């Protein structure tokens, strides 16, 4: 069982929801927001093991190259150019292997180029995984795919990156249920609609958590009701929560918030029709 936590917009509380729920029911947590991973700040896993993530990039053997430029022509990402020889702009390379496949003289070999890392550790006996993209590297996708590849069928909560682009699609592939975290503001509503469109497109069942709720009657709640979207929980607009968050503390340390997440969890279990 894979449960993903996402939101159109950043800063709505994805990490708060995913770390607290994962810890509450003691299941595996994975932080797929590899551009700004923050989950470990709250879960504080121990015995962290780190592994480099690389992508294969082409290397041209000058002795074999006949300067046919086929590799340059096939590259869809403009990563290869030909002057008097073939030059690689490595940060544009997606590591797809098309250049190697098209080369008639087998002049292209591939070398691994590191773009980030994956860390694993344990918060008590709970397994925690997190990916980090190296700063100034543009491509988060390969790290996310690798992280996803490390999951088996044990229940896992996936903390996604903000937005709705390819970096959110990758963690969502194969997910059984999605939690969309939003805020009761016009910005939040605008971005929630984008997230809803995405999970509907991918045919993933989902529910919404409204964070920073100050009044019951708001545009986001109304949208959910009108559109038959299941609101599985709300988190109050509360300075105490902001303070606990700022210190890097889990909210479930406090009994009243623990109750709140327990209720959310039972709503999720009801929605997916099994207990976790």
């Amino acid at each position, binding site marked *: 069982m894979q449960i993903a936590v996402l939101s159109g917009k950043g800063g709505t509380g994805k990490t708060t929801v995913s770390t607290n729920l994962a810890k509450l029911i003691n299941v595996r947590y994975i932080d797929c927001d590899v551009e700004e991973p923050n989950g470990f*700040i709250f879960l504080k896993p121990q015995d962290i093991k780190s592994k480099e993530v690389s992508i294969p990039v082409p290397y041209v053997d000058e002795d074999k190259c006949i300067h046919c430029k086929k590799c340059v022509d096939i590259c869809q990402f403009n990563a290869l150019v030909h002057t008097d020889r073939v030059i690689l702009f490595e940060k544009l390379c997606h590591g797809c292997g098309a250049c190697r496949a098209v080369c008639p003289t087998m002049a292209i070999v591939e070398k691994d180029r590191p773009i980030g890392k994956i860390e694993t550790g344990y918060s008590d006996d709970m397994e925690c995984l997190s990916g980090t993209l190296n700063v100034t590297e543009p491509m988060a996708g390969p790290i996310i795919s690798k992280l996803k590849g490390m999951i088996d069928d044990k229940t896992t909560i996936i903390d996604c990156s903000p937005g709705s682009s390819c970096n959110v699609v990758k963690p969502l592939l194969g997910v059984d249920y999605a939690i969309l975290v939003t805020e009761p503001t016009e910005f939040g509503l605008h971005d929630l609609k984008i997230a809803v469109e995405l999970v509907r497109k991918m045919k993933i069942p989902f529910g919404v958590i409204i964070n920073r709720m100050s009044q019951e009657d708001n545009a986001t709640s109304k949208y959910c009701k009108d559109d038959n979207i299941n609101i599985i929980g709300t988190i109050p607009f509360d300075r105490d929560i902001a303070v606990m968050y700022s210190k890097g503390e889990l909210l479930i340390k406090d009994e009243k918030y623990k109750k709140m997440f327990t209720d959310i969890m039972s709503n999720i279990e009801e929605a997916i029709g099994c207990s976790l």
Partner: protein
Amino acid sequence: MQLVIISGKGGTGKTTIAASFAYLSENSIKCDCDVDASNLHIVLGGEDIKSEAYIGAKVAHVDGDKCTLCRACEDMCRYDAIKDGVVDELKCEGCAACTVVCDYDAIKMKDEVTGDTIITKTSKGILSRAQMIVGAEGSGKLVTDVRKNALSYGSKDDMYILDGTPGVGCAVMASVTGCDIALIIVEPSQSGLNDFKRVLSVVEFFEIKPLVCINKYDINEEVTKDISAYCEAKNIDLIGKIPFDTTVEKSINELKPIVLYENSMAAKEIKNIWKKLNDYTK
């Protein structure tokens, strides 16, 4: 002069501040680089005067009549995007490696529209923005296009205010390259400090002048001190500390920039920051 507002993490107040600057500046050109979830137009309002489909990616298409299901493409594809002669468009990176190995000429790359670029005329000048199709590839390239569009509405001497994207990856790099000043909004939390350091590295890498502003600084004064000390040690100007102010939420819901609320503490500080910023842009 191009000023980009970034934050590492989302939800730190980039758009609130960008919208305020848009109101405070007389003749600036606005640019919303957050193509995944653009919000600036919601506050600024106005009328869309131009919209163009943006072709940002290619996707493989298999001709079922020619395909012999030899699966050479399946073996080649590193993104697991082809199964039984059918392309999963959400997984396809558009690399064309499959076309190379197909002996039956059954696969063609087709252009894919990944969003729209839009020019909105607001009461405070031109806003260049985009609406990406959900789940699309290549938001970085789309950001570059949105910026090009903005530049076509002004000259080099004009002031450009760019609402940046969250994170440190491709879209952020496309937002900041070539800018003169990056105003980094930091939230005083453990994760905020972490995100700040990462996004600062991006700004430094591109040799853009960083300026820092702490939002909701009174939520955790201890971390605020850490951020101040960090800025001082690195010789980065901390040009403002915005207090936690519930009027901000009200302003978002009333779709008005916070600077229009006279008694708001946050608004007062944002006006101060804008004044200080203008000293850097002279």
